[in-house]
């Protein structure tokens, strides 16, 4: 079996060679560490438990390279893809921020700018270039650390809040393009912000998006993320969000995979202040031969915290899905209330889902519940709807909308939720 690994390693070396020319973000120690780690860390193949159902082997087969910074935002793509959404904007093409299409907030206590600018202005201290060490653990993390391009830098002083969400729109255009956006969000105590992370890609786009977001949510602060993946073309999308929460803080994320050739979302939340509350909800509706993987980790380390996790998936055609939900309740995390639910509908015979809840509980006075279901459309309910004159397609649409409705409902922005609903309706012919 060593030979397989060698092939993967060689392929991986070849794959990242095209990234060497990337414009360095200027986080030099992170970049150095990333390069060093790339030489050491194993490439995620089927042999690794964490990547068993999402090996990157297929991605490695077509080497990618970083694209030069675009001259302007592409005319055919709306910078704000959400009709009616009143938001600040940080927009990127192929990993590069396009400054003239951005719209940044200017307010006391608020710093919102491209990450590259924050680096230039010396707002990131040496030694504080990353908060998670993800690049030391995972090959894909090392790829981002070594080749990070640009992204959102959002920092709110204590007690400040943004009057509008910040929309971070990443668009991919071109073939075999590597994009490595990197975002950093820091909310001071009692600060509040909503961020919309939107990723799109043109029809002919291919390559890799390798995105990292690190966030710190201060005591009593609230951070909300609406994350929407709507990529045409054939992109391998690797995303990693890592959030650390302080005392009595709230973090919410909704991850909606509307469309994506191959998607691996890694979400990791660490509560290290008591009374923190976390919401991680998501929905995925792959079709064709798409692949969507959601790996989540909820880490309760201190007492009196809560978490609510709900992921729902409908898998069509020959698509494949993965859900892996780790919940840790550490020894000190007494009075934790953790909830996890993953529900799947396998709509067609060729589709499949690998779902795995993983709870590790070391405290004795906690409430943890989890459930995982895989099923099909309820024929009796379908017949009931049809018996009232509703056509088969419309009946299925009603049931699907009902199924994912409770995920969409909790999103931070109703405009984003509406747009997701309408994109899904269009894509699946529910109109």
């Amino acid at each position, binding site marked *: 079996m060593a030979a397989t690994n060698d092939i993967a390693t060689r392929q991986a070396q070849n794959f990242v060679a095209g990234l060497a020319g990337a414009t360095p973000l200027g986080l030099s120690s992170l970049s150095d560490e990333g390069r060093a780690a790339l030489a050491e860390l194993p490439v995620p193949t089927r042999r690794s438990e964490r990547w068993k159902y999402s090996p990157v082997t297929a991605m490695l087969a077509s080497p990618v390279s970083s694209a030069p910074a675009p001259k302007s935002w592409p005319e055919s793509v709306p910078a704000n893809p959400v009709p009616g959404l009143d938001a600040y904007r940080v927009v990127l093409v192929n990993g590069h921020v396009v400054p003239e299409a951005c719209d940044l907030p200017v307010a006391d206590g608020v710093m919102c700018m491209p990450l590259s600018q924050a680096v230039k202005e010396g707002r990131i201290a040496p030694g504080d270039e990353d908060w998670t060490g993800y690049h030391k653990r995972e090959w894909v993390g090392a790829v981002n650390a070594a080749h990070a391009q640009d992204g959102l830098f959002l920092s709110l002083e204590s007690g400040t809040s943004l009057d509008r969400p910040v929309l971070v729109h990443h668009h991919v255009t071109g073939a075999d393009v590597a994009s490595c956006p990197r975002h950093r969000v820091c909310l001071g105590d009692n600060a509040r912000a909503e961020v919309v992370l939107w990723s799109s890609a043109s029809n002919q786009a291919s390559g890799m998006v390798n995105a990292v977001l690190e966030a710190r949510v201060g005591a009593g602060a609230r951070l909300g993320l609406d994350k929407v993946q709507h990529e045409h073309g054939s992109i391998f999308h690797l995303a990693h969000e890592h959030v650390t929460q302080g005392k009595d803080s709230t973090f919410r994320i909704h991850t909606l995979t509307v469309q994506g050739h191959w998607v691996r979302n890694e979400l990791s939340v660490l509560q290290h202040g008591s009374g923190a509350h976390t919401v991680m909800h998501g929905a995925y509706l792959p079709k064709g031969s798409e692949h969507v993987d959601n790996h989540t980790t909820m880490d309760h380390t201190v007492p009196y915290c809560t978490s609510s996790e709900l992921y729902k998936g409908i898998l069509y055609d020959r698509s494949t899905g993965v859900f892996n939900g780790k919940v840790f309740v550490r020894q000190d995390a007494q009075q934790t209330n953790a909830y996890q639910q993953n529900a799947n509908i396998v709509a067609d015979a060729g589709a499949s889902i690998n779902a795995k809840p993983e709870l590790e509980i070391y405290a004795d006075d906690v409430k943890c519940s989890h459930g995982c279901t895989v099923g099909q459309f309820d024929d*009796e309910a379908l017949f*009931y709807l049809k018996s009232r004159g509703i056509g088969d397609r419309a009946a299925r649409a009603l049931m699907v909308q009902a199924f994912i409705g*409770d995920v969409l409902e909790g999103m931070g922005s109703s405009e984003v939720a509406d747009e997701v609903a309408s994109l899904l309706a269009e894509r699946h012919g529910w109109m």
Partner: protein
Amino acid sequence: MLTINNLHARVEDTPILKGLNLQIGPGEVHAIMGPNGSGKSTLASVLAGREDYEVTAGSVDFDGIDLLDLGASERAREGLFLAFQYPVEIPGVSNLNFMKAAVNAKREHQGLEPIAAKDFLAMVKEKAALVELDGRLRDRSVNEGFSGGEKKRNEIFQMAMLEPKLAILDETDSGLDIDALRIVSEGVNAMRDAGRSFLVITHYQRLLDHIVPDFVHVLSEGQIVKSGPKELALELEAKGYDWIKEPVA
């Protein structure tokens, strides 16, 4: 309105309907009674287009249309309605959205524009009053958490909304207390008119005290074995089903 001729149907390999004949004229109310396992609910399911049943022979003419040629939703749009014996709970689909989709599907079939929101709400209010279905139940997910009586009232509410040409009530009286039975029956009676027919399937005579039929049929072993005026129901109640087992010639 409805002419059933020599209908045979089976579930998997088990024949259930074995040559059923029935004719229902416009505005008529027909009751079908019969012992358990005689095929009453199968008849309702076959007419409504449930896919688990296979029709092996016979024909059903519904107001000039070959009913068996249509799918379940098309039958409904043509004006057939089945009030379920066991109404289905559908979490997440609101009763109102459900009805709106159903009303508009029918309107589209008739070449009409979707109903205006204001007209729809007025219609809901009017029809819900027929069966005393309060706002709370109208807005909730379809049948979710409804009591047995509420579910049956919701069936009649839906029937009133869709104004069918032929309504089949499949053991609508099961699971109803006396008050709910009265409310449901009054709802049905309010909808009786010269153009609308009913097929009332029931095990017990008591429903027919409230919804008085024009004709009563006895179903046994997949065939109508006896037909008569409404008094036949009383006779059945008194004597049971054993005295009529042989099919009429």
